[in-house]
Structure formats: structure tokens, C-alpha cells
């Protein structure tokens, strides 16, 4: 009994010790980043930032709920900067009231106006496009429209992850914003009818299925394919497929942003601003292009040669805020047509 009690006591002391050492970090010379981007992916960026600026970066990465966390933490929240992907999430952060305007003439010069909030609550940092992984062997055409994905000639030939995943949610929202809900429903039913299997897995599985011949067309993000082509184990899947940059009929390719917001109660606001401006700077933008295989938003920074091999990206002119506004409708439409069932 006494050894059991002693164990509990020891554990309680240990618990108190952890609590004491890992309290909120809000000293000068630091910046606290909450991120939906995987820390593995952005850690090299933060390391480079620390080297350049001497400012230490503290990170929490998660998959959902960070807006709620920042909101609940309130005035004492240690969050300075929130990094996320998807326009919808950026707008969600703004409407949750956890942001403050980023005032930076430097950023305004570097980031084109369609990739930032008119009031400065969010700024895009990099772009990605939602494209087609097509079988080299079975798909002859080198151009395609999103509209064409509903064409019965592709019956049983298309693979895609869940329609509720944010990447697809944004694509469907863009379709609604361009064509209206009725047309979008017809289209989504058509795409659904063309699926080779129930939506599941991720973009990597989609490419893999195309490579293995489960389907001829897969829908995925630009950087996954580049990552596969650079990975020894996954290269065969990239080799068996080609990337087609699809367009909306009469428009361009569907793109989405990875972006940044400044937290409303940022305790290290100055450092946060330094980090945000640094992320849009030359060094970081080259890293976004060459290690993450994203499209840099800063003019004059070249895309990686693998990404360039897809062809010249012509982003659709539809404003991103229109996509964000249609996201709920897109989610409802996926439910209505039973896309994932």
C-alpha cells in the first residue's frame, strides 16, 4: 500500500513540475505560432527565421479547433500568429474574432490584392492548385475542364478523396460560385456517377490508385505529386501518372491559399509581424517553392521545376472570398447528393 501511495505522490510531484515548467511562454525574443500546417513541414522555415532574426519560434500544430482554443484562451492567449491553409479557414478565423489587421506596406507591395483580405485580417503566403493526376497509359488528352469530370465518358474512371475534405470542399464551392447551385448539383451527381470507388484515403492514395489502374483520373493537390516524384518509394506512382492543370470552362485553374493571421491579443505582436513579413520574403518564398512544392506568392520567385513541368498555372479569376462564401453550400451539396456514401 505504502509503495502505491508513494508512487502516486511521486507522480503528483512530477505533474506539478511539468505544470511549472511548461507554462505560457511570452517573453521577448520569441514568437508563438499556432498552426494547421504540419510542424515537420514548416519547422525548416522557422529554423531559418530564427537564424535570420534571433527570434525563437514556439509552435503548436493541430488539425482542428485552434480558432476555438485561441478564442477561449482570450486575452491571455499566448498565440501571436495562426498559420493555416484554405480560404475558408482564414475567413473562419476572422469571423471568430481572433484576428487583428496586419498593417504592412511591405506585404501590400509583395502579395497581390486578390490573395489578401481587403482589411488586412489575413494574407496569403503560398498557393496550391487542385489538379488532375491522369494515367499516362490510359489517358491521351493533355487538357481537361472541371466541368468535363461529369462527362459519362469517364464512368468508373475517377478517384477522389472525401467530398467533405477542405480541398474538395473549396473546389465544389468554387463550382457553385461560378455556375450556381443547381448546375453544381447536376455536376456533382455526374462526378459521383463516374467514381471508380467510394471516396476515401487521401490525395496520395488517389495517385496510387491511378498508377495501379483502379481509375484513370485522380483529383489531387499539386505538391503531393511533386513529393511523390522525389520519394524513392513513391516514385513509381508519379512515373505512371501525369499532372494536368484543369480549368473551369472559360476560366482558369482552381487555386487555394496557405495563409496567415495575426492574433488579436498577440503578446509578441512586433515579433509576429516580423515573422509574417519574413514568410513573404525571398528566403521563405524560395523554401515554399522548393521544399514544400507550393506556388510562391511573391513575384519574381520561381516555382520549382517539377511544378513548372505541369505547365503554366493560370489561376481562376474568381475572388477567393466568393469561394469562402459558398463553402457551407458546398458541404450541404455533398450531403445532398450522397457523394461520400
Amino acid at each position: 500500500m505504502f509503495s502505491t501511495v508513494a508512487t502516486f505522490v511521486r507522480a503528483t510531484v512530477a505533474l506539478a513540475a511539468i505544470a511549472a515548467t511548461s507554462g505560457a511562454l511570452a517573453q521577448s525574443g520569441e514568437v508563438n505560432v499556432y498552426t494547421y500546417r504540419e510542424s515537420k513541414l514548416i519547422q525548416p522555415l522557422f529554423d531559418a527565421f530564427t537564424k535570420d532574426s534571433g527570434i525563437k519560434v514556439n509552435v503548436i500544430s493541430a488539425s482542428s479547433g485552434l480558432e476555438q482554443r485561441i478564442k477561449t484562451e482570450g486575452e491571455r492567449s499566448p498565440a501571436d500568429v495562426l498559420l493555416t491553409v484554405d480560404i475558408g479557414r482564414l475567413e473562419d478565423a476572422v469571423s471568430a474574432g481572433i484576428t487583428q489587421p496586419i498593417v504592412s506596406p511591405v506585404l501590400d507591395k509583395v502579395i497581390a490584392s486578390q490573395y489578401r483580405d481587403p482589411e488586412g485580417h489575413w494574407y496569403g503566403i503560398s498557393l496550391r492548385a487542385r489538379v488532375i493526376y491522369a494515367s499516362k497509359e490510359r489517358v491521351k488528352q493533355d487538357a481537361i475542364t472541371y466541368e468535363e469530370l461529369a462527362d459519362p465518358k469517364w464512368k468508373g474512371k475517377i478517384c477522389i478523396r472525401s467530398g467533405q475534405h477542405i480541398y474538395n470542399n473549396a473546389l465544389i464551392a468554387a463550382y457553385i460560385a461560378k455556375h450556381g447551385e443547381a448546375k453544381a448539383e447536376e455536376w456533382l451527381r455526374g462526378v459521383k456517377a463516374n467514381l471508380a470507388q467510394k471516396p476515401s484515403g487521401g490525395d496520395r492514395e488517389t495517385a496510387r490508385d491511378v498508377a495501379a489502374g483502379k481509375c484513370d483520373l485522380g483529383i489531387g493537390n499539386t505538391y503531393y505529386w511533386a513529393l511523390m516524384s522525389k520519394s524513392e518509394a513513391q516514385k513509381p506512382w508519379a512515373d505512371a501518372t501525369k499532372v494536368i492543370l484543369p480549368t473551369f470552362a472559360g476560366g482558369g485553374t482552381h487555386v487555394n491559399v496557405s495563409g496567415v493571421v495575426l492574433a488579436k491579443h498577440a503578446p509578441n505582436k512586433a515579433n509576429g509581424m516580423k515573422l509574417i513579413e519574413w514568410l513573404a520574403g525571398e528566403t521563405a518564398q524560395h523554401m515554399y517553392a522548393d521544399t514544400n512544392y507550393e506556388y510562391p506568392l511573391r513575384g519574381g520567385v520561381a516555382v520549382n521545376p517539377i511544378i513548372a513541368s505541369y505547365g503554366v498555372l493560370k489561376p481562376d479569376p474568381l475572388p477567393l472570398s466568393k469561394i469562402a462564401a459558398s463553402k457551407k453550400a458546398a458541404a450541404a451539396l455533398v450531403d445532398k447528393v450522397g457523394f461520400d456514401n
Partner: protein
Amino acid sequence: MRGAVLSHRLRWPPIAATAIVLGVAALVALPLVSLLRIAAIGDADIWPHLIAYVLPAAAMQTVLLLAGVAAVTTVAGAGSAWLVTTFRFPGRDALLWLLPLPLAIPTYIAAYVYVDILDAAGPVQTALRGLFGWSAAQDYWFPPIRSLGGAILIIGFVLYPYVYLAARAMFQTQCAIFIDAARAVGAAPWRLMRDITLPLARPALAIGVALALLETLNDIGASEYLGIQTLTLSVFTTWLNRGSLPGAAQIALSMLTLVAALIAFEIYARRRQRYQGAIQDSRLTAPIRLHGIRAWLATLACTVPVAFGFLIPAGFLVRETVMRGLVSGFDPALLRHSATTVMLAACATAVVLLLGLAAAVAQRLIRRRFVAACVAFATLGYAIPGTVLALGLLSPLVAADDTINWLSQRLTGASVGLVVAGSSVAVIVAYSVRFLAISIGFMQAGLSRVAIELDEVARLCGAGPMRLVSSVHLPLLRPALWGAALLVFVDCLKELPMTLLLRPLNTETLSTYIYQFATRGNFEEGALAALLIIAVGILPVMRIVRLAETRPADPAELR
């Protein structure tokens, strides 16, 4: 009758015990109240849509998934437990060690592994295409692993140890007299199982299956990856895609109510049954030696769950670790993450065991309906999906910080920041709320097997409640304590969604580390971290197996 006579003399200071029970219940009530507050915001407009297009299909998928997992875990868990308890056959001694090991494999890791192996581009189908000269996966039919059936098998084969451990403990200590008597009248082993072993083991099986099913209900990673639209997933899509956090909270709370009702029904359904086993006779029944083909069939039957639940996934991870040079290119941060993981899990396990023990003992000492209800309520944390629970905990944790800061402002004039919500305490509280059910369940089951007469004798001899617990209950509860410690510890090691949302800055556990790779479509890079989870998890599994395989404490030997 007996109790009534003695109760005036034996009643333990009920205030302390009631306070303990209330405190434990309050811990679970806090996140529930904050979820209720979120749900109460309204958003009723979303329900017609949910009812028309989302919930019927999701409910159907969920029911099928749960039924399938219940079947697989019961057959694999109770079946293998019965075989190793009743018979001797080749490999039995090794299987006693191997059978609980799938516990250490996180469900979503198993899903990734099996999709890698069995998907169209995996080695199996690639070999088949080569063999039959098919050029593309469209040319033939192969059972899709990303399907409901696939999910049932994958989840079932990693979760069966919940049933196995509960069933094994029960079978092992089942009254030898019954078994021997039945054998004496010539009952065949399978009849013994049907008429005596299984009915006697029903409470244990119910707990094991319930834990496995709640674990299934908590899963989001595996079912999303495998394309199963469960109710849990619909909670998330309602929150994140349909933009209704209140709607999501309402679905989660409805599910919770349903689960609580089901568990209450199971308890109600066997209210007339009384179980008293080990106390009259704690002799273990001797296993019967099997011969020939039947012996090997038993070996095979017990090897199948071990192979699918552990050997194949672990083997795959070892292969990836070697092929990707993850050992030579060892990421030194992994050591720190391992230490963090073990520390968090150990702290939470200590807290959970202490609270579970206190609650179960208090319930035994004060046999009032109110106390029992509080203890039952305290197990509800396990029935809430992790991320939802974490969301519910945010407000109470920050409220605690507000109080602390208010106090420190008054006392020292300085505020201390988020010492609860912004520290590891948040994660430990979350683990405690979620896994309390496991320790309470084990303690209750353990205590139910300690005859109440022992308490009465101890008290007649003048032992106080502390003495009663330390000298009588704890020694007899040792297997239950270790069983609970193992499950809670391993569950904490594997826990992902709550850790992701609540952990402090610059803190990674092995699970969150793997998650980084998984979201990038490259989970194999996390293979070594997954193996570390398994390695850390296996140590307590070995400890519990050693304990379980020795004789349970004999009441006669008590001092």
C-alpha cells in the same frame, strides 16, 4: 440483512467519501456542461438537413461498424481467451504473451498499414496482376480494403485485446468447482463454455466489448481514411464544413445519451444475476492438453488475431523503418518526444487510478443510489470523441486559469498566465476525464469479486476505512489495478486528437509526431515513432501478463 445489522457500526464517514465521488463526477461534468452550453446556442436550422441527408446513413454505417467490431472482438478476444484458459496446445505459452499486444497498435496506424499492403498499388494486388497478366486494377475484382468490411476487420483485430484481457481474467478465476463438477458429469468443453463459462463471464465480456466499441466510436482517423461515414465523422463535418459547432455538440451529446442508455440497459438486463466466483474457491482449473490436429487448430485460431492485430502491422513498420534508414538517420527529437509521451501517460495513469480507486471504494462503502449514479456518470468521458471532449474542456481549463490569475493578482499583483490551459496539465486532465471509465470499471469488477463479508470482518476487528482499503482491498485488487494501469497507460500513449488540440507549445508526443507525416501522405516516415509507441506499450503489457498468469491473491493469506 447482515448489512443492516452491522451498518450502524460500520458506516464510514460518508462526507469524505461523498466528496470524493462528487469531485470525480464534477471532473467529467465540467466539459459536458460546456458542451451543453455550446449546444444550447441553437442552430436548429441545421437539423432538417442533417436528418434528411446525413444522420440516417451515418447512423446505419455506425451501427454496422459497431456490430461488426463487436462480433470480431468477441470471437477473437473471448475465443482466444477461452482456448488458452481451457486447453494446452503448441505455442500456448508464447500466445499468452502475444495475444494482448495489438493493444499497443493505434487503430489509424493499422488502417494505414493495411491500405498500404492490400490496396490496388500494394504488394498483394501487384503480385496478383503479375501472376494473372492483368494490366490494371480495373480488370479484376478484389475485396476493397477501404470499405466497411475492411474497417470492421482492421479495427476489430487491434481492439480485441480489450475483450481478451477481461475474458481471460474472468475465465482464469472462474470457480473451479463449477468447471470440475461439469467435467465430472462428462460435459464437453464447448458445452461448458456455452452453459457455464460464457454466462459467468458475461459482465467481464460486456465491459471488454463496451470498451472496444467506445474506442471504435472515438475513432476518426481510421474511419475517415477508410471512407466510412460514421456519426463521429458527422460531428466533425457538421462543425468544420457545415459550420455549426452547436449542431456538432448536439450530435455528440445525442450520441452520448444513446451510449449511456445502452450501457444502462446492459446492466439492467442482468440485474437479477448474481456473480460470486473466486471467493469460495480460488483454485485455478487445470487446462486440458489437446492432441493432434485439434491442438494445431487451437494454435491456428489463436495465432490469427495476433498475426492480423500485431505481427503484420509491427512487421510492416519494422520493414519501413529499415528501408527508409530511420534508424541510421535517427531523429534525436524522438527521444524527447518519447520522454514526453511516457511522462504524460504515467502522470495521467496515476491520476486515473487514484480517482478510479477512490470512486469505486467510496461506492462500495456507501451503498446509496446517489453515489452509484455519480460514479456511473464519471465514466461518461469515455463515450465522447476525443476532439469533442477537448473542445469541451477548453472553457473549464481557462476558467481555472482565470481563477488562478485572479488569486495571484490579489496576492502578488502579478498574473501567471495560462498555467493550466497552456501547460501539460490540460493534457493530463483530458486523459483523466477520458480514461476514468477504464479504471472505475476495473476497480468495480475487482471489488465485486471481494466478498462483502471480508469488509465486515475487517471492521468488526476494528479496522478503519483506510486500513480496510490498504490491507484488504488493495492486495485483492492488485490484478485489477495493474489491468487498469496497463489499459490507461497504453491508451494515453496512443491518444491523438485531445493531445493535438490541448498540448502546450513546443510539445510533441509520439502520436502527434507520427501525425505530422500522416497528414502529409507519408506516414511511413513515422514508422520508427510508431514502433516506439509499441515498444513503450509492450513493457506494461508484459508486466500485466506476468501478474495475470500467477495465482490471484488468496484471501486466506491476508494479514
